[in-house]
């Protein structure tokens, strides 16, 4: 079996096919400190892509509460438990096995197979706290919090080394060379469900009406036109940005995704130890349990949390965060100069310009003309 380079794990990993990185790689960065689980992303995706027969239960994008939530039920705990110890070296190299490396001889990928009841509770554990129970009210006056939860929005990670693709016996799953989006060929799929079993993030879903498996398509028709996916552009909290991520050696500091992941090392892949190089990246929540975060995001999470707390001192990062959510278009390059953040498209044409600090405008508390006290409504 070939070995392929996995920079998340700082080592080569086994994969059934040779490594061919796409010309560029679709990626989303989420700031988990901002997500409020309004599920607008979920519904934007649902109404766009999964309103047909057989898709009734599907949420290609979902938001679950950690630590107790999971769609399907306990997807993460069940695969982590199967994988066993997941140790990291001090230099950031992963010492454990990946899902491909840990597969028994009879399987292509170590997996668990969800049953129908596992898909029936998309909101299980919503707003339930980790950190044990209390007899009376809590006081959350330091970081991290003793009692904590956070929301985890999830799409397909369009992995560099997808488990779904590795597991498909029909070679019906492919990764697009132009943007790294992973698709299930709906004309070749026979609904064997091997991808549903193999994807540890459980983002392949079986359609019992068409008898094929389906998954998040990264909104490729929009991406091809330079527009970000529906779940991103509809995010009312402006917590996410879609762009293209580079491997570390060729990262560009003026690329928004590279900036957040490589330059500032604020955003991390989730469950990188599974070995698939997933391409959705999370700015970790600063209030949650550090050990839990380390399990989910790896040992670099503590530095990322520390950096995020200092972010207000970084005008360039602050400028980029002002650009996120300000445009439907994919930002390929950004600049922050003299308090103004500017985003550029693929042709390097300006698509938006925002002040990093908005000019305050003060109004008198009493409106003389109307003879009324003003409130904060516009």
């Amino acid at each position, binding site marked *: 079996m070939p070995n392929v380079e996995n920079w998340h794990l700082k080592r080569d990993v086994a994969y059934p096919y040779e490594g061919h990185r796409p010309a560029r790689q679709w990626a989303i960065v989420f700031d988990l400190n901002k997500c409020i689980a309004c599920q607008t992303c979920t519904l934007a995706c649902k109404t766009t892509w999964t*309103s047909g027969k057989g898709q*009734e239960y599907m949420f290609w994008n979902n938001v679950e509460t950690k630590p107790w939530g999971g769609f399907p039920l306990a997807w993460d705990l069940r695969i982590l438990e199967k994988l066993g110890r997941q140790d990291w070296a001090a230099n950031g190299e992963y010492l454990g096995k990946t899902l491909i490396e840990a597969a028994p001889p009879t399987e*292509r990928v170590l997996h668990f197979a969800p049953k*129908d009841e596992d898909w029936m509770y998309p909101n299980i554990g919503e707003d339930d706290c980790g950190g044990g129970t209390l007899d009376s009210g809590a006081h959350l006056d330091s970081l991290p919090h003793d009692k904590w939860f956070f929301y985890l929005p999830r799409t397909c990670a369009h992995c560099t080394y997808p488990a779904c693709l590795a597991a498909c*016996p*029909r070679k019906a799953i492919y990764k697009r060379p132009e943007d790294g989006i992973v698709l299930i060929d709906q004309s070749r799929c*026979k609904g064997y*469900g*091997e991808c549903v079993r193999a994807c540890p993030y459980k983002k392949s879903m079986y359609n019992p*009406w068409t008898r094929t498996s389906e998954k998040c398509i990264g909104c490729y028709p929009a991406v091809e036109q330079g527009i970000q996916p529906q779940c991103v552009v509809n995010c009312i909290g402006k917590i996410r940005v879609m762009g293209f991520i580079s491997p570390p050696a060729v990262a560009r500091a003026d690329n928004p995704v590279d900036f957040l992941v490589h330059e500032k090392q604020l955003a991390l892949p989730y469950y990188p130890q599974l070995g698939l190089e997933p391409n959705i990246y999370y700015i970790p929540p600063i209030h949650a349990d550090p050990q839990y975060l380390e399990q989910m995001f790896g040992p670099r999470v503590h530095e990322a949390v520390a950096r995020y707390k200092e972010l207000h001192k970084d005008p360039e990062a602050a400028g980029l965060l002002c650009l996120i959510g300000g445009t439907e278009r994919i930002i390929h390059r950004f600049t922050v100069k003299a308090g103004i953040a500017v985003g550029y498209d693929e042709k390097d044409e300006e698509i938006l310009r925002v002040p990093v600090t908005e000019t305050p405008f003060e109004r008198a508390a009493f409106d003389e003309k109307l003879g009324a006290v003003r409130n904060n409504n516009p």
Partner: protein
Amino acid sequence: MHRNSSPLGFLPTRLLLAASSALWAACGTAPTAPAPVALPTTELTELAVNVVTADLSRPDPDAAFWRDVAPGLVSLIAQPVTAPRPEITTTSSIYVQAVHDASTVAFRLQWADTELSEAGHLGEFSDAVAMEFPMVGDKLPSVMMGAKDDPVHIFHWRAQYQRDAERGKPEIKDLYPNASVDMYPMDFKDAPSGGKDDKEAFNPGIAIGNPQSYSKTGVDEIIAEGFSTSSVEEGHGAAGRGVWKDGMWSVVITRPMVIDGGSTLAVGRPNSLSFAVWQGGKDEVASRKCIHMAWLPLKVL
């Protein structure tokens, strides 16, 4: 050789023992001894296909003429070559009978399976059986679904497909009666363009014409040139019908003797076939199957 037509006759001894113990416990009286049957215990070396005077146009596992045809035992093992594959052999033998009427060949295939599995629900798989035949010339292709330029012709029956034919392809409400669905796109009366194509645009597999996505009749005809290459073809009139009773599947698959562009059988001409069985209840699907590891010679008399 004459044999009792009861499907119980093919049950492995341990299942018979379990069944008789259960009966004993339930009745509280001495169980009736099972009728003596002539179970084949030695491996079939050649499948003889005798001519019958009977209507073979509709596959019928209970047809009277099957009583007069000796069944042959064909051993199966868990597919051992390509992952994913079963960890254990779930179906160790299949009992095969075959007859023809000069234009159609009928095969009755029987195997023990403790539960009926028709798939449908998420994460469920269907019981199934398949026969494969070489496509071209006298050279036998790989028994593992053929090889490049050495295709095999497969007849694949699924309980799931038979359910489609007998009770209709299930929708979510059939599978989950308590499911709540407001409406489907283009499925409301005032939809300005709610034609069939408009509705099917929301069913990707159907919209793109994937044979897997349509209602089935029972048997798929498939051409394959090795693992991962199976392709459902336009049918040539093959049909199938199965009955599951008392822990035993009894499935009849009929196929035309001559199939242009496919596998062809002829009186007096040597041919071969092989078998695969899937137990849906054991999560078997695709390469997770039990197979016969060799070509079985077939002689049409």
